[in-house]
């Protein structure tokens, strides 16, 4: 079973984000594999262990996005593809989907394409749907559990009021959410092995894309700091905090 996993390289979420003009600064700062995509890599590895085949990581981003791919390779993925091109700076979700779709087509034949439900930095949450459409695949999204048997994938899909069981035949696109599995740590051996695994780097032209395909249709026209909520009173509980909270609830007229 051959699996392509989308992996995004994002600015380290534990470091306060910086802006580079209109965009989130991505070059020259500490980046990581999106923690949400670690679940995707783990899902790919578990399926490979159960059904055989290969896991290919696919990413679009600056040259430094190699690090995210290396991280996934050290967890156990087999190879990687990075699409990097100056013209893609500020790419919106649709352009990203077109680039990843072209890269996945060029990289081979896959039974399953896996992505995260939403990225930690951009959280548009629509790239996977667009990707499924461009690859003409059905989509099973928001997976909390995954089961693959006889060419069918079946998931428990999170919903507002519980979950639905959704199934479809392969090939398909799958999105995973946290809690679907427990991503493994990369072992020292894994890290060493990752250095020798193949990673291809492609440009937009290598994918046969040009002009309209990669034209960005959304532009940041301005930005303003959000109205901040002010921190109020902070007290340390000396046994009377419950009373203070109850006072507050009375003032708010909810009790």
């Amino acid at each position, binding site marked *: 079973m051959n699996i392509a996993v989308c992996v995004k390289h994002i600015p380290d979420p534990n470091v306060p984000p910086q*802006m580079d003009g209109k965009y989130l600064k991505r070059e020259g700062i500490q980046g990581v594999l999106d923690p949400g995509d670690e679940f995707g890599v783990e899902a790919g590895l578990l399926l490979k262990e159960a059904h055989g085949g290969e896991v290919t990581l696919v990413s679009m981003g600056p040259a430094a996005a190699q690090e995210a791919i290396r991280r996934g390779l050290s967890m156990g993925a087999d190879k990687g593809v990075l699409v990097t091109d100056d013209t893609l700076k500020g790419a*919106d979700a*649709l352009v990203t989907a077109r680039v990843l779709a072209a890269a996945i087509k060029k990289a081979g034949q896959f039974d399953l394409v896996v992505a995260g*439900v*939403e990225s930690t930095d951009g*959280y*548009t*949450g*629509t*790239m996977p*749907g*667009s*990707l*499924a*459409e*461009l690859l003409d695949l*059905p*989509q*099973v999204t928001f997976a*909390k559990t995954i089961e693959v048997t006889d060419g069918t994938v079946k998931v428990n*899909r*999170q*919903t*507002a*009021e*519980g*979950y*639905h*069981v*959704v*199934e*479809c*035949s392969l090939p*398909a696109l799958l999105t995973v959410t*946290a*809690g679907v599995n427990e991503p493994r740590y990369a072992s020292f051996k894994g890290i060493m092995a990752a250095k020798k695994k193949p990673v291809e780097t492609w440009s937009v032209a290598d994918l046969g894309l040009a002009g309209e395909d990669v034209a960005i*249709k*959304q532009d*940041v*026209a301005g*930005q303003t*700091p*959000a109205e*901040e*909520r002010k*921190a*109020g*009173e*902070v*007290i340390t*509980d000396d046994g009377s*905090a*419950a009373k203070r*909270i*109850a006072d*507050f609830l*009375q003032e*708010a007229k*909810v*009790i």
Partner: protein
Amino acid sequence: MPTIWVYAEIDNGKLDPSSLELATKARELGDVEAVVLGPGATEAAARLGEYGAEIVYASDDQVYADYVAQPHVHALTELIGENAPDMILFAMNYDSRDIAGRLSARLGSTLMSNVLEIESVERAKTAIIGGTIIVDVALEGAPKILLARAKSFVAEPLEGGEATVVPVETTVPEEAKRAKRVERHEEAATGPKLEDAPVVLSGGRGLQGPDNFKHLEDLASAIGNTAVGATRAVVDAGWVPYSYQIGQTGKTVKPSVYIAFGVSGATQHIVGMKGAKRIIAINKDEEAPIFQISDLGVVGDALKIIPQLIEEVKSRKG
């Protein structure tokens, strides 16, 4: 006047309340029309009419309930081809994002997510970096596809609003019937709904285990008209059902009072609750980010405070 469409999600015959928020907003932007696909659609059309939709394209076909995303994209593509709306508004829900993402690729249309405000057919706003920076986005092409976060707009009915129902006649092709919903599990919630309750209590990992959530439920019954929610960390740990989750990938709540027990205040949680009128947080760690947005912060042990608060509320209510 531009034509603004609202994609109104319907599940089990129940119209998503966000669609009424979107219809209300759409009235400021142009002529409002709606699309609703699935069993119960025709009946729901009247409701959409009350909130400003002049035309509602509706189909009660079961196919839209049975299969995910692709049938809806097929129908929408045909309808858009015939009617050429300028903008389509979706709520940032589970089904709607799948549909909007596919539709964007099918039409080659620009799509914007997490929309908080729509100025015009060319301009909309969203927040980035955990809601700290508001960006104003210029949109090109047509139709523009926007996904708005729940509760970004207030639903207000229109005096005498009435919709003309136009049946959607298309036949969904076999190749669009692929991802099938084979079972539905709904977690029956007692008490008021999380989205509507005037008081929301939310528990995080600081509650240390599922048993302590029961105490939170007890506190909710003591206060009355109160719902219990949770962080994703807790939902993932299986302490409470998915339907409790508040935040970026969960529900958006805007109660009169929100009380966080053992919640750190990660940005993905905050986007789902920072619209609360008043926020109280109880956390052991005085550095917890949740305190930065709280009107009343208590540095203390939630496990100790919950039973005391139950007693206190009970005695005051008499």
